[in-house]
């Protein structure tokens, strides 16, 4: 199933004798591609080598070297390890790199993010606007020489906390007594601000329908305060009557600067912050981050810790899917009752998290080399009771409750279809990809941790519509229960951490990309270390953010009322979309 690394090396270097060289920096891997050959290189990877799935695009600011780097990760949807390639450009504005949207449309939002936060201009990008911050914000926040208003020091821990830690609120160090700073020549009256203009201009760029009546098109905004957007998410739609002709998601209303803060935190400090990415599935986030850092550190967890991790990750998947089923059915019109049924079961799982990790949602349970602590007394019994005796029946009950309901079916079947080809092109992952018929699940495609020891099916559906995306989640819950039942039977006794608990870990210089199959899709962490206690670059490949790339294309041609259902079936969580 996996492609041996040697074969790739051979193929790529003979295919590109010039223009692509292996990345020889210690701790790094992948290929350095010449900027002028990038498009050609990517096309060849996709068409000749079968790397059809672009997982992640991000930038790194190498300030000391005076370089900006764009890092790409591509994979095959048939499974196996991937290829990482990079482009380096000098760090003088404009930092310009050719866009890969024409080859991998899934790069669209990710390139916009790199432009927004790092100021890397992607020439040829169809709609290069800011994505997380608003249009008109000054500066590129993730650049290493950009400092926020509350800037204290380059790295934590800050010196003024101890031993002479007179309490100082961050506000008191700022001239405005607030978290704000303006460019030096700023005068509020001289300028007028319209952060929305670029969005509406982009919306108006659509293919005009030349046949039929010439009707006026109107723009409708859903959100950011809207009951069906699952948080602070905004959708701007261009309508022709009831029909959607263009749609742009607007995000960033919950942009909490996860990556900037993460590059100041020590490695351990980032662990509780990852909880707040996808706050419905904190254990999965912990998992991905722990795997990435462990890869860099070259350590492995103990056997028992591995089992505990898998147990936790699968329970998280179930609780996440339960929440999704509740909200999606809610969006499809079944007001709150399915939500109540689903949340009851979720509460029982949260009780387990609370007993084990100490918190219902923000578990902060994984540590490098294991987990924070072993199960307390009685928890194991509880897990057995819930997952052997209660949940299987309850899932069937919720399934029976609405899955055959005529209204749900007519609102779901055939609506918001995403074909298999499109799903791959738009880098969609997780249950959404599988609902379109692609059996791509990282737990099988590139098994991490101990997933190769369990028997489970990769659930797929055929049509890729809302209904299939709902049903695939039911299937996945059943498979997760299967995994949990196996893990409960196999789990060995022993220690839960393989290293001595330390609050300051030594991470050698290098880079690592760790990815897990989160409940929402492929959750990746790209970490660059320069040997210091804090990461140099800390990037999160957020599945629900990238899954949104397909949102617009899925909606075009549909009725406006279906936007809510389609959005609901993507399963976004804003903490992760906006980070």
């Amino acid at each position: 199933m996996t492609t041996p690394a040697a074969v790739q090396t051979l193929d790529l270097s003979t295919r590109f004798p010039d223009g692509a060289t292996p990345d020889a920096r210690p701790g790094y891997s992948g290929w350095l591609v010449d900027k002028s050959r990038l498009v050609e290189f990517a096309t060849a990877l996709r068409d000749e080598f079968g790397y059809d799935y672009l997982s992640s695009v991000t930038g790194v600011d190498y300030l000391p070297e005076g370089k900006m780097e764009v890092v790409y990760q591509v994979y095959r949807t048939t499974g196996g390890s991937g290829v990482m390639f990079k482009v380096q450009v000098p760090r003088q504005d404009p930092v310009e790199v050719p866009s890969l949207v024409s080859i991998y449309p899934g790069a669209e939002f990710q390139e916009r993010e790199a432009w927004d936060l790092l100021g890397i201009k992607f020439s040829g990008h169809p709609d290069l606007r800011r994505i997380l911050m608003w249009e008109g914000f000054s500066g590129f926040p993730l650049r290493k020489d950009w400092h926020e208003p509350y800037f204290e020091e380059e790295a934590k821990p800050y010196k003024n906390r101890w031993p002479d830690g007179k309490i100082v609120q961050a506000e008191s160090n700022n001239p405005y007594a607030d978290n704000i700073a303006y460019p030096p020549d700023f005068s509020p009256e001289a300028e007028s601000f319209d952060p929305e203009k670029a969005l509406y201009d982009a919306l108006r760029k659509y293919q005009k329908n030349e046949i039929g009546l010439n009707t006026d098109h109107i723009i409708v905004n859903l959100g950011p305060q809207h009951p069906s957007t699952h948080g602070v998410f905004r959708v701007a739609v261009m309508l022709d009557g009831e029909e959607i002709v263009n749609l742009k998601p607007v995000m960033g209303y919950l942009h909490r600067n996860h990556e900037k803060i993460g590059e100041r935190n020590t490695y351990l400090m980032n662990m509780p912050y990852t909880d707040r990415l996808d706050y419905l599935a904190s254990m999965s986030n912990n998992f991905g981050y722990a795997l990435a850092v462990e890869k860099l550190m070259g350590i492995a967890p103990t056997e028992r810790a591995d089992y505990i991790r898998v147990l936790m990750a699968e329970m998280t998947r179930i609780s996440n899917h339960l929440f999704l089923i509740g909200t999606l059915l809610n969006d499809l019109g079944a007001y709150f009752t399915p939500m109540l049924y689903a949340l009851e079961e979720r509460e029982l799982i949260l009780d387990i998290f609370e007993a084990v990790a100490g918190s219902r949602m923000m578990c902060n349970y994984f540590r490098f080399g294991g987990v924070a602590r072993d199960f307390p007394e009685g928890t194991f019994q509880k897990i057995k009771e819930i997952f052997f005796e209660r949940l299987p029946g309850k899932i069937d009950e919720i399934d029976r409750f609405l899955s055959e309901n005529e209204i749900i079916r007519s609102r779901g079947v055939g609506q918001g279809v995403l074909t298999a080809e499109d799903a791959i092109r738009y880098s969609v992952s997780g249950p959404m990809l599988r609902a379109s018929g692609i059996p791509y699940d990282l737990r099988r495609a590139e098994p991490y941790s101990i997933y190769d020891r369990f028997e489970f099916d990769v659930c797929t559906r055929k049509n890729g519509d809302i209904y299939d995306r709902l049903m695939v989640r039911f299937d996945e819950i059943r498979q997760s229960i299967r995994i949990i039942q196996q893990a409960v039977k196999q789990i060995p006794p022993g220690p839960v951490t393989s290293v001595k608990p330390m609050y300051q870990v030594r991470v050698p210089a290098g880079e690592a990309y760790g990815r897990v199959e989160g409940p929402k899709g492929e959750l990746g962490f790209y970490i660059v270390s320069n040997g210091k206690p804090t990461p140099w670059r800390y990037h999160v490949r957020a599945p629900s953010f990238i899954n949104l790339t397909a949102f617009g294309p899925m909606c075009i041609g549909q009725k406006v009322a279906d936007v809510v259902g389609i959005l609901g079936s993507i399963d976004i969580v804003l903490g992760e979309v906006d980070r």
Partner: protein
Amino acid sequence: MDSNELNSPGFDIPPEIKGQIAITSLDRIYNWGRSASVWPLMFGLACCAIEMICTAASRFDLARFGMEIMRPSPRQSDLMIVSGTVTKKMMPTIVRLYNQMPEPKYVLAMGACASGGGPFKEGYNVVSGVDRFIPVDVYVPGCPPTPQALLNGLMKVQEKIRGESIKNSRWYKKGSDLAEIPIPILGPDLIDPRKLDLIKNEAKLQEQA
């Protein structure tokens, strides 16, 4: 209920209105009605919103407090539960929502983020607490507050409501509905219109330096 009890609405009565039995007893009824039918705004910001949903769901059941009707429209709600991180990009919307809520209105800051910035306080897009812009009545700490902690906060809101009096309530005063909070502007950074002078001053200072 004897008349003494009727006349003690749970707070100190200023001497000048001590004799006004009608008002204080009316207050009790008025506040009892209001505190038992607080309609929160269906308004979730971040992780805390999930706990808010859980509070409204089966296990904690907000309906027991007369709060089950979460209105998605600010025009129909009394209580804004600011449940999560307040970002600069979201701030104009929040202020607008607050302005649109009819009096009497209450604000509950749920979680560390809404109260004082929370773990993401240092971030460039994060507002250090929603009370920078809108007045907050009750602060609930925690990250996230568990549903029971939120319920505790909601009971504090009820307690506050019960302590109010028709006599001096701000929403019966003239012009109270005109007191809108100026909506912040998204410029190169968030601009608070109330701070324009300060900003200009600061710009001058920088020029001189």
